[in-house]
C-alpha cells in the first residue's frame, strides 16, 4: 500500500471510530429522554 493509503486508513479509523463513539452516546441520550417522556 502507498504512504497515502496508510494515512487514509489511519484517518478513516480515527474519524470513523470517533463518529461511531459519539453517535452511540447521542443515540442513548435520545432513547433515554424518550423513555423519560422528554421531547427533543
Amino acid at each position, binding site marked *: *500500500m502507498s504512504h497515502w493509503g496508510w494515512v487514509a*486508513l489511519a484517518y478513516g*479509523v480515527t*474519524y470513523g471510530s470517533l463518529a461511531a463513539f*459519539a453517535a452511540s452516546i447521542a443515540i442513548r441520550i435520545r432513547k433515554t429522554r424518550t423513555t423519560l417522556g422528554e421531547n427533543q
Partner: protein
Amino acid sequence: MTAQTRTRRWPWAASALSLLGAFTLAMVSPADSVQGDLVRIMYVHVPAAWLAYLAFAVTFVGSIAYLVARRLSWDRIAAASAEIGVYFTGLTIALGMIWGKSTWGVWWTWDARLTLTAIMFFVYLGYLALRRTTDDPIARANRAAVLGIVGAVQIPLVHFSVVWWRGLHQPPSIIRPDGPAIQDSMMLVALFVGVVAFTVVYVSLMVKRIELMHLDDRLDAAERAGDQPVAGEAVTAPNLGGSA
C-alpha cells in the same frame, strides 16, 4: 431549532470544527525526510495517546475526590473519563499498529511501550467491568475508586517505558530531557492543534457521557418508584393527628 437543542448540540459542533482544523493542518504540513507522508499518522496517534493519559488522570483525580468528599458526582466524572480513556487507548493501539505495519513491517511486537499500553487498556476495561458487578451506587463507587487510583500508576510507566527500556518504539517526541525532537515549526503546530482538537472532543464526550449518566439515574429512580405501589393510589393516608 430551540435554544435548548442548540445548547445540547454545542459539544458536537465544537468537536467537528476543531477536528476539521486539525485535519487541514495535518494534511498541509510538510512530509518527513525519513518517513515521508507516513508522518501524518503522528498527528492522530500522539494526540490519541495524550488524551488516554489525560482521561485516566481525570479518573485518578475523580476517584480520590470521591473517597475524600463521598459525592457520587466525582464517581460519575471518574467513570465517564475511564470509558473515554479506554476508547482513546484502543484508538492509540489501532493507529500504532497501522503506523507499525507501514514503517516497521509488522502489526505488533512485544516492545515495552506496546505491551504496557495493552496492559493499561485491559486494566481500564477491568475498571469498567468492575463497575457492572453491583447495582449499589456506593459499593460501585468505592470499588471503582480503588482501581481508579491504583491503575494510574501505569500512566508514567507507559510514557517513560521508551526511556527506561530499549525497544522498537521511538523515544518521546516532545517531552524529553533535551527538548522536542521535532524541529519543523509547521509540524509542531500541526501536532499541537491535533492535541487541542482531541482535547475539545474529550471535553465534549465528557459533557455528553455525564449527561447520559444523570438521565440513567433518573430513569432508574423512576423505575424503582414504578415498581413500588404507592399507598395513595388505593387508599387515603390516615390522619394520625400530629401536626405537619
